[in-house]
């Protein structure tokens, strides 16, 4: 399939990103064709039905089944496409937001005015121990499942990582667990997608995807530094 709409999107680096991009592209093609058809018919009727001297309009009130079928048959097709889109969309939704693969790494993510706080459990993998640390960036290993345990301190924020096709509101009073698996190393932008006050537009941060080895030594180093404090 041609990457028509997806071509406008930033590079995908998530395992489930393909599923989202597929759904967006699929809908894009289906609705674009329907839109062209509908506008085409509209403009054809406008052009062909313009007033001509001596030609009277045809009386057709669309009350017979035969006339109505001109509208109802395309509508049944619309319904068919709708159901197909919905099926594809929910298969992807189920994989991304309902299923939760086993975690290799767990982060606590806290939204607050106006910064994201990431808490890593350290080498021991347990929160609340001395080797927990809070890096400035969300640093994760490539090709491993990362769980994000998201909450908020004050108002609603939304963790938005365009390259990961990841978005989840962080809601005060709720703990929402999400996941992703990055497929490519590098630095990627993180933003807040839910209006959270005057600093909403500067609530920026970075996702750093590292090779497994580099990530492991980074965790060891950070944990040791935390313990030393």
């Amino acid at each position, binding site marked *: 399939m041609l990457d028509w*709409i997806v071509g406008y*999107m*930033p590079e995908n680096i998530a395992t489930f990103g393909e599923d*989202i991009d597929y*759904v967006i592209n699929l*809908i894009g093609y*289906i*609705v*674009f064709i329907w*839109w062209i058809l509908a*506008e085409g018919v*509209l403009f054809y009727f406008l052009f062909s*039905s*313009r*007033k001509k001297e001596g030609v*009277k*309009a*045809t*009386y*057709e*009130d*669309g009350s017979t089944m035969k*006339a*109505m079928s*001109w509208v109802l048959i*395309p*509508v049944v097709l*619309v319904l068919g496409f709708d*159901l197909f*889109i*919905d099926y*594809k*969309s*929910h298969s*992807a*939704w189920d994989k*991304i*937001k*309902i299923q939760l693969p086993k975690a290799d790494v767990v982060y606590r993510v806290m939204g607050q*005015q106006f910064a994201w706080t990431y808490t890593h459990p350290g080498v021991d993998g347990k929160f609340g121990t001395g080797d927990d640390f809070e890096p400035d960036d969300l640093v994760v290993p490539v090709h491993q499942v990362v769980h994000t345990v998201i909450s908020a301190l004050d*108002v*609603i924020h*939304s963790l938005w990582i365009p390259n990961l*096709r990841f978005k989840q*509101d962080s*809601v*005060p*009073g*709720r703990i929402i667990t999400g996941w992703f698996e990055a497929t490519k190393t590098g630095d990627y932008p993180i*933003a807040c*997608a839910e*209006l*959270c*006050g*005057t*600093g*909403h*537009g*500067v609530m*920026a941060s970075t996702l750093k995807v590292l090779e497994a080895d580099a990530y492991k030594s980074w965790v060891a180093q950070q944990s040791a530094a935390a313990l030393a404090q």
Partner: protein
Amino acid sequence: MTSHQSNFWNYYIFSKDHKMIAKQYLITGLIMALLGGLMAYVFRMQLAFPGEAVPGFGDVDSGTYNQLITLHGTIMVFWVGMPILLGAFGNFLIPLMIGADDMAFPTLNMMSYWTFFVSTLVLLASFFVEGGPASSGWTAYPPLSARPEYSGVMWGMNLWILAVALEFFSVLMGGVNYLTTTFNMRTKGMKFSRMPMFVWMQLAATVNFMFSVGPLIAGALMLLLDRTIGTSFFVPDKGGDPLLYQHLFWFFGHPEVYVLLLPSLGIVAEIIPTFSRKPLFGYKMILISTAFSSVLAFMVWAHHQFISGMDPRMAMPFGLLTIIISVPFAVVLFAYIATLWKGSITFTTPFLFAIAMIAEFLIGGVTGIINGAAAADIYVHDTYYVVSHFHFTLVPITIFGMLAGVYYWFPKFFGRMMNETLGKIHFWITAITFNVIFIPLLQMGMGGHQRRIPDPTEFEYLKGMMGMHKTATIALIILLIAQAFFIFNFFYSMYKGKKAEANPWKSTTLEWDAPSPPVAHGNFEVIPKVYRGPYEYSVPGCKQDWSPQSAETVN
């Protein structure tokens, strides 16, 4: 003219005449539309040229930016869409179209407008209180809106809640009139099956509003208590839940879209048959679809909340119903398009705006499928894609639909014709620039550009989109300037336009039986009787290509 009418106060200000009340709504709504448009100018300038002082306004800091976008949305939906599409057109046309001499409760009608007027003053007053007006977005999500310390806005937010509540109260009073009048005051022969589609659509919109507004008023009251006396309905520190508000808001918010859409579709349903000289295609089919969509409208609200933190399994039913709701609207739009087939079309200004409403709303409709598909919505939610999508629905609905109606019924409102040349210049500039504003926004949303940030250059990945921001802003400025053609045409034609005959468009429905403008008290010289359906154009065997509802026989 009786003596009490010549009194300025009774005639222009505290009028109980549905036509004068309609004009009051129209003028107030148009002034608010101008205000909402100017706000868009200020924040779009900030987006295109971040940090630079906006000519005519000054510096836009992030707090001001949030206030501008909040009030822009609030004004355009509640102070432009509702007062004009329901208040102005509903008031003016329902009695005229069903052959009634006025609304059922004229005093209630007057109170409806004046409550609306007070709500407008309260909203405008919020600009002048310490801390400025509301800044939590037009959706006013708590906890941001629930505690002054989170937004820095003090009384502005309370006044916002009060203003919105008063506005809803005003619409409710109007709605009581619309329902009572339509059910009880139809003239002889005006069976339900002969009612113009416009009246049906006003009824459907009113019913949608009445059934949906209760939860929102409860939500607004709880929000006000959270702000003022320290309750915690929506703040978790004492056990409240922010998501509760979202459910209450969107349970209202989705039907609210139809409260605007249906009257606009009603306006278009009158204009297309008139200028294509054809009956509306599938009258009953449109009615059944409207009823079906009005029921579905109450079952789709959580599609605004796919990633809000609600149980993700809820996305299944809400996503399915959301996508299915495209079906009844496909029926209506296809029926309107089918009405044109083998017609005899004259391209007047009202017809052009009516067609633009359909052509542009189609974009709003098809772009919405991506939002409605839960998986795709993960990506596009809260981006410019959504901003563009709902402007492709709401601008055709409120602006194009309203302008179509104003150009079409102006002779009935004011007894004079608007200028066609100025109208067409206004149409083409408005229609073209509208697309130049919002097509780039679709692309920016796909690029991942989140909403409601005052300075895109804060993010490296958004810097490449500044060209599109500038394009959209320049197009908006041209669009706003082009409205001068409309404003001039409106006021010039009111006094100096060509005198209008009773039925200048050779139309069939009853409002065209009344003189232009209608008789001050009573509307009609003689209350008409109805002999046929509303869209009998080009009836075979008749020489004249329109058969008025009120004519016993047509040659």
